[in-house]
């Protein structure tokens, strides 16, 4: 418990954010500023939240390529679309619920239907927004984005992966939604890791159970797995950072090896990672799937760790669920 806010000592020399505890939004801000110098086609839009989404650094370095659209997310998404039509690579940022909820129809009609090269990188996904409460905690964004044709949906697990995701999507042509968080996350990905869209990372394969996790829940899954191993449970962990397109090959492989599957995400249990995994496996390899996530409810105000504890997004919940299934 408490791993979310636990700070691992930063390695000040490295710029790839390997092995440091950092909020993914901070990595976004730094990476975007770095990429802005390398690629003049990158333009950034924000809806009056650039201090929070961390696009502010880019705005200071490249004021001509930064457009604050004000508190008008719908306009921002379509303006980004227009910029993409002239060959620019627009990154549009705001909080996850506003990017995907307030502007959903703009994302559908303009970005996805015309298959435009717009990168929607939203911060403040999930419960770890904390004190701002339910209005600002997005627990539905993955479902809302995943249902859209042409859309790619990515949830990085740590700083090291976030940097690679942002770099990778610059080179990918088409709509992308990236969900980032407000709170610090501990490092989980190994130094040899290289992100590829649609490719899951298998930490290890378990013969009893495999946990398919995304975002902050990857760290929880790894902690849970460690504890379970001391109790003799053979448990595997997969970081499914691309929610769409789902790495069905990796998923099928680990499913075929396990007795059941656990999904873990900082999102509603409806329509997100758990939904995607269930939809796929129910057709090709029916197996029991238990979901760790928020059970069809809104969030609350509180500290991130308190909220995760209250809503059951913890190592312990994963451990208990697995032990119960095995008993």
């Amino acid at each position, binding site marked *: 418990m408490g791993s979310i806010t636990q700070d691992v000592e930063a390695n000040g020399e490295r710029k790839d954010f390997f092995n440091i505890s950092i909020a993914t939004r901070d990595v976004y801000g730094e990476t975007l500023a770095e990429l802005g110098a390398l690629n003049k086609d990158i*333009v950034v839009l924000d809806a009056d939240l650039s201090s929070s989404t961390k696009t502010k650094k880019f705005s200071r370095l490249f004021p*001509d*390529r930064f*457009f604050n*659209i*004000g508190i*008008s997310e*719908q*306009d921002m*998404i*379509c*303006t*980004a*679309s*227009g*910029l*993409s*039509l*002239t*060959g*620019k690579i*627009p990154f549009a940022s705001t909080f996850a619920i506003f990017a995907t909820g307030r502007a959903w*129809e*703009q994302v559908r*009609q*303009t970005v996805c*239907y*015309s*298959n*435009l090269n717009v990168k929607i990188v939203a911060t403040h996904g999930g419960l770890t927004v904390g004190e701002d409460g339910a209005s600002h905690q997005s627990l539905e964004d993955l479902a809302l984005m995943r249902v859209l044709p042409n859309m790619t949906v990515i949830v990085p697990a740590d700083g090291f992966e976030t940097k690679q995701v942002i770099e990778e999507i610059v080179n990918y042509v088409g709509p992308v939604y990236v969900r980032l968080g407000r709170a610090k996350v501990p490092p989980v990905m190994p130094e040899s890791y290289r992100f590829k869209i649609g490719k899951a990372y298998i930490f290890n394969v378990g013969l009893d159970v495999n946990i398919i996790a995304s975002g902050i829940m990857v760290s929880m899954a790894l902690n849970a797995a460690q504890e379970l191993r001391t109790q003799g449970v053979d448990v595997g962990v997969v970081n499914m950072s691309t929610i769409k397109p789902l790495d069905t090959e990796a998923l099928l492989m680990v499913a075929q090896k396990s007795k059941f599957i656990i999904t873990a995400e900082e999102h509603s249990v409806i329509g997100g990672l758990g939904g995607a995994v269930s939809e796929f496996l129910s057709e090709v390899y029916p197996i029991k799937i238990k979901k760790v996530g928020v059970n069809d409810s809104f969030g609350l105000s509180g500290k991130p760790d308190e909220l995760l504890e209250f809503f059951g997004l913890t190592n312990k919940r994963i451990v208990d669920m697995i032990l119960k299934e095995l008993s």
Partner: protein
Amino acid sequence: MVDFFQSRDINFLKEKARQVRVAILKMLTEAGSGHTGGSLSSADIVTALYFYKMRHKPNEPQWEQRDRFILSKGHAAPLLYAVLALSGYFDVELLKTLRKLHSPLQGHPSSKLLKGVEVSTGSLGQGLSIANGIALGLRLSKIKARVYCLLGDGEIQEGQVWEAAMTASHYSIDNLCAIVDLNDLQIDGRCSDVMKIDPVAKKWEAFGWHVFQINGHDLEEIVETLDSAEKIKVKPSVIIAKTVKGKGVSIFEDKVEYHGITPTLKELEIALKELGENG
């Protein structure tokens, strides 16, 4: 560089507008569904854009220097298809496939399926924001091209239009010209009855736009205004074009019921006769 068409000959433009109306009526009758009134009301304006004002190359739709046209009122798709076909983007025979399965001529324009369509539209209120983005992108790339965006008057009830109006003004987007087709009718009735939009000109002025008010069927005035709008610097310009829904066919003119229905064969015959088209 040779620009396409660019004829300022009013008689030529009148003849083109007539051909555009004929094409619209024929394709809508064939399709059996679609939006007649709003396609006809904007016909003179869009004819002036495609056959006079805009620099574009039908044989090179992605020409980087081209002026862009965004049909924010996407339901006037038949009008867009008519000007594209008559300009030479595709064979006029294709117009007969409007709204049919696997036709690139979707009920509302799809940029994925049809060359010459800059972006898919149909859900109202999004086009002006897109036009802003294109205009900003062109400005960043130092491309001199202009962006034209056609909105319906009912459409400006959408809140996003005013978000975009603020953005265009805030960023001094002067390579953009919005045109509002003020035909005073929307599906449920007169705009003033459904949801009052007046005072339209004052609203745009208050949002920081240079406003032109014209008769949207007077090609001389349309052409002159499009030229004047290009000279407006530092602020965006909007042309509020007073029009008549269903213009050009007296049985359809100013009739709310012809917003979303198509002519019968009998009505087509009457309409074509009125437009001086034989057969």
